[in-house]
Each structure stands twice: as structure tokens, then as C-alpha cells.
């Protein structure tokens, strides 16, 4: 195998292997819809995590409200169906675009804020949307949500759709980070004022980062509507289940690394599933109730011991592991 050089980015050998594995492994589980479901969620979180990572990890605009874009994408797919019978599949186009428009409008307000204030501002916008979509029943059907009989029973078509979206997301980030825009994002993250002095229109480039990020988050939301066949505001605009998990996916894998969110997505979905199923029924049932606590501990662990995440600190982890084995061997 060789690196494939495309116009805007390179697909390395390793990436080609990863892509092949993401095709082969799910096919091995052809008789397990349960496992296929997990793979679908992993891919969905790759999209959300990478989308967040572009804005937060690379551009330094740490969003605590990515549920806003995920949710608006889901509703962009669901609302036209509910009101006019238009297929939610159109959402794969309109979900991302709607999220970009929302992101631009919110950006007018939240980009005036910096650091923790930006985080709080984004958190608040997602919460406001959750409340509005719950209350305006004439528009959204409120907490009764939107129901749609899914197109296929088989999960493979869904897997390969979200797989394609996930690859598009990751490689769009990769291509951007090799371009002028990518350098500008990093400069803004490192020092917004110094960035201006070298000719960077920081406002414009924050909006570009926001647009790409929200596009993919909205697309993921539309996919969720199509795949699950049901959405309500508490689910798609959720602070803990969407916004916070998105951040966890980003930081566990490694903020500001191309493949970090993918690794984070695998870890998060597996950990979540282990706890939800009480370790596949092997552990006492109450375990399933403490998953929020475990996520909290996971974050603390990552921040304290591997600030770069699994991908960002890979060298460090390997080194530690070697030392550990050496110690064992010499004992």
C-alpha cells in the first residue's frame, strides 16, 4: 500500500488501512444488528467529535452547545416531513445548511465573547433552543416529538451512509488544516490579537470554522432523524447527552488532532454501552446508573494525565507502557 496524494490532502497508508477496517469489521457482524447499531453510533460520534474539534480544538472556540446544531439539523429533516410530508432524507442536504445559518446568526453574538464566556454563551443558546422547541407545539409538536417510519429495517445502508459522512467530515478537516484557512484557525487559537497583526481577518475565519463545523453537526442531526425515526427536543438538544459527550469525544481522543475524535468516538460509545448494559449483565444493575459519574472521572483522568488525549499523547502512552513492562521484566 502507498500513500494516495489527492489535490487537497493525502490519504496515508495507515488511513487506508483504517478505512478498509471500517468496511470489513462491520461486515463480520452481519448477524448482529446490535453491533451494527453500535458501529453506526461510533460513526455518528466521529462526525460530531470532528466537527467540534475543528471549531474548539483547532480554532480555539470551545463550544459547549454543539447540540444546537445537531438538534437543528434533526429538525430540519423532521419538520418538513411532519408539516408537509416531505421526505426526511432531504435533511442530509438541508440539515447541514440550516445549521450553518443558525451558527452564523448565533456567531454574531457568541463570537463577541472569549474563552469561558464563549463556552457559556454557546451552552445557553443550545438550552434556549431546547426550551423553545419543547414549548412551541404548533411548530414542533413539542415533547411529543416527530415520528417517522424508517426506510429500511436492515442497518447496513445506514451504516454506510454515516460512514461516508464521517469520512467526508474527517477528510474535510484534514484538507482544511493543510490550507491557509487551517493555519489561520491555529493562529486564532494561539493568539487572536497576534493573528490580526499578521493580516488575519479573525472574524471571517472564525465564521468559516464555525460554518464547516456546524454543517457536519447539522448533517449528523439529520442522519439521526432518518435513522432513529424519532426525535424530541430533550434528546437532540440535550446538554449532557449531546453537547457534553461531543466534548468528551473530542478531548479523550485528543483535541486538535485529525484522528483524535475517531478514537474518542470508539472509546465513548464502548464505555457508554458497557455501563448502559451493566457490563452485558455481568455487573449489578445499579452500575448502569453511574455512567455519568464515570464520564466525569474519565474527563478528570484525561485532563490530569493525558492533556493531549489518546492520539495527541500516543508517544507518551507508549513510553509509559514500555517503562511499565521493563519494570515488570526486571522484577
Amino acid at each position: 500500500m502507498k500513500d494516495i496524494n489527492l489535490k487537497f490532502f493525502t490519504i496515508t497508508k495507515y488511513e487506508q488501512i483504517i478505512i478498509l477496517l471500517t468496511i470489513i469489521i462491520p461486515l463480520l457482524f452481519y448477524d448482529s444488528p446490535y453491533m451494527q447499531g453500535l458501529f453506526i453510533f461510533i460513526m455518528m460520534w466521529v462526525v460530531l467529535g470532528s466537527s467540534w474539534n475543528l471549531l474548539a480544538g483547532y480554532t480555539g472556540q470551545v463550544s459547549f452547545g454543539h447540540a444546537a446544531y445537531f438538534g437543528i439539523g434533526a429538525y430540519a429533516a423532521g419538520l418538513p416531513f411532519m408539516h408537509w410530508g416531505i421526505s426526511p432524507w432531504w435533511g442530509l442536504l438541508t440539515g447541514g445548511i440550516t445549521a450553518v445559518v443558525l451558527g452564523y446568526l448565533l456567531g454574531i453574538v457568541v463570537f463577541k465573547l472569549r474563552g469561558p464566556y464563549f463556552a457559556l454563551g454557546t451552552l445557553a443558546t443550545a438550552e434556549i433552543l431546547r426550551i423553545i422547541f419543547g414549548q412551541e407545539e404548533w411548530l414542533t409538536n413539542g415533547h411529543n416529538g416527530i415520528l417517522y417510519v424508517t426506510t429500511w429495517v436492515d442497518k447496513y445502508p445506514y451504516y454506510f451512509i454515516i460512514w461516508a459522512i464521517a469520512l467526508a467530515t474527517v477528510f474535510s478537516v484534514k484538507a482544511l488544516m493543510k490550507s491557509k484557512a487551517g493555519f489561520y484557525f491555529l493562529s486564532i487559537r494561539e493568539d487572536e490579537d497576534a493573528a490580526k497583526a499578521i493580516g488575519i481577518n479573525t472574524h471571517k475565519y472564525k465564521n468559516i470554522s464555525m460554518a464547516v463545523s456546524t454543517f457536519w453537526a447539522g448533517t449528523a442531526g439529520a442522519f439521526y432523524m432518518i435513522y432513529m425515526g424519532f426525535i424530541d427536543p430533550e434528546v437532540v438538544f440535550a446538554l449532557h447527552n449531546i453537547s457534553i459527550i461531543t466534548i468528551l469525544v473530542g478531548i479523550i481522543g485528543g483535541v486538535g488532532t485529525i484522528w483524535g475524535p475517531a478514537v474518542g468516538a470508539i472509546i465513548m460509545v464502548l464505555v457508554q454501552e458497557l455501563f448502559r448494559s451493566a457490563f452485558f449483565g455481568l455487573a449489578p444493575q445499579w452500575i448502569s446508573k453511574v455512567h455519568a459519574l464515570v464520564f466525569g472521572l474519565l474527563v478528570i483522568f484525561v485532563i490530569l494525565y493525558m492533556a493531549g488525549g489518546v492520539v495527541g499523547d500516543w508517544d507518551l502512552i507508549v513510553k509509559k507502557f514500555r517503562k511499565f513492562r521493563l519494570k515488570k521484566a526486571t522484577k
Partner: protein
Amino acid sequence: MSFLVLENLTKAFGGLVAVNKVSLEVKEGEIFGLIGPNGSGKTTIFNLINQYYSVTSGKIYFRGIEITSKKTFEIARLGIGRTFQKVRPLKRLTVEENVMAAAFARETSFEGARKVASEVIDFCNLTEVKYFRAGSLPIAGRKRLEIAKALATRPSLLLLDETAAGLNPSELDEAIEIIKKIRSQLGITIIIVEHIMKVIMNISDRIHAIAFGSTITEGSPKEVAAHPTVIEAYLGTDETLQGGFNA
């Protein structure tokens, strides 16, 4: 047409008038020194030129265009580069990435920016630390990186704010060499703020002296160094004027 003109430039921070009706003209191709004791308003003048701060009153013209209310990034694109006295490297990026980010002001392609960065890095003697993280550089390297970043934007006017401060004698000579090369090889006009008189007297064509935000005098290095108010302004605060000038 004058290259850079400041007209009655004034900046007040609340009650404190940091810059008070300063007028000056810089000619294309010269090295123009700006001196004054600590807190006299030199950095503030730079911050006004590139619109880091908005002016309280007065006007700034660059190549005949009024830039007084333009945005910082637009001024950089018009061709005014600057360094920061308190250096501001993009810490977690490498030296090369820092300079490339700046080079994108004129380049659109990755390869183009890398080529410009490579030239500028060689020019500023940063070749050995090209792949180091900017945050890991010692002060001399950081000061040169400030210059490299500004140069990579391809300015026609460069504002240097104490790029020689905190350097040892050999680093200092290197810095002076680079500054001279910027004009002689790249043809860039320079305004330089420097406390070290050996540097400023040595390389400036003309010097503008301020104290407490107001102009004291302007002229050739010799004239300015002989001006009684300049000597007085520096006595007790900075003895390097005479010592440095004689050296």
C-alpha cells in the same frame, strides 16, 4: 507623497494622555528611530498605527491613504508589519508554522507559503530551530521570530518594538545585522523603538524623541543626542544614552 504621516496623534486612556499631539513624517526607505523614557508612549504609537488601539484624535496616513479607522488585519495587508515588545509567538506551533501563517497574507498555496517562510527563516537566522515549537525558544529566538513573522507578511513598512531588548552582546550584533539587512536587501522602511542607544544611534537615519507622550525633538542621531531635554529626560532613568552613544 509621504510614506507615513502622523498628524496630531493623540491617545488618552481615561485621564491619562499616553500620546499627546504627536506629528511626524517617515520617508520611504529610511530607518526612523523613536526614543523616549519608559512609559513615554512609544508602544502606544505603534498600537495606534496598526489600530490595536483606536485613536482619540488625530490622523494617520500610509502612502496617502488614511488608515486611522481601518482594521488591524487590513493595515497588515496594506503593508505595515510590526513586532511586539512583549513577544507574542503562536506558542504551540513550530517556528515554520508561525512564519507560514504570516506568509499566507500574500500567498494562497501551502507550497507558496512554505517557500516564503523558508526564505524568511533563513534571513532571520532561525534555520536551526525551524521545527521547534515557538514556545520552546529562548528570548533571542523569540525576538527574531517576531521579526520573521512580520517580514513574512511582505510589509513595506516595519515597526520594530525593542527587538534588541534582553539580548546578550553577540545576540545584539546579530539583531543589528538583521535590521540593517532588512533595509539594504529587502528595501523595507523601518520605524524602530529601542532603549539601547548603541543600536538606535548606530542605525537610525533620523530620530524622534518623546517624553510623557509629547514630542521633544527630531533630527539626526547627533542632534537628538545633544538636545538638552533629551539628556535630561534620560538622566536618572536611563544612563545608556551617553555611554552608549560614545561607545
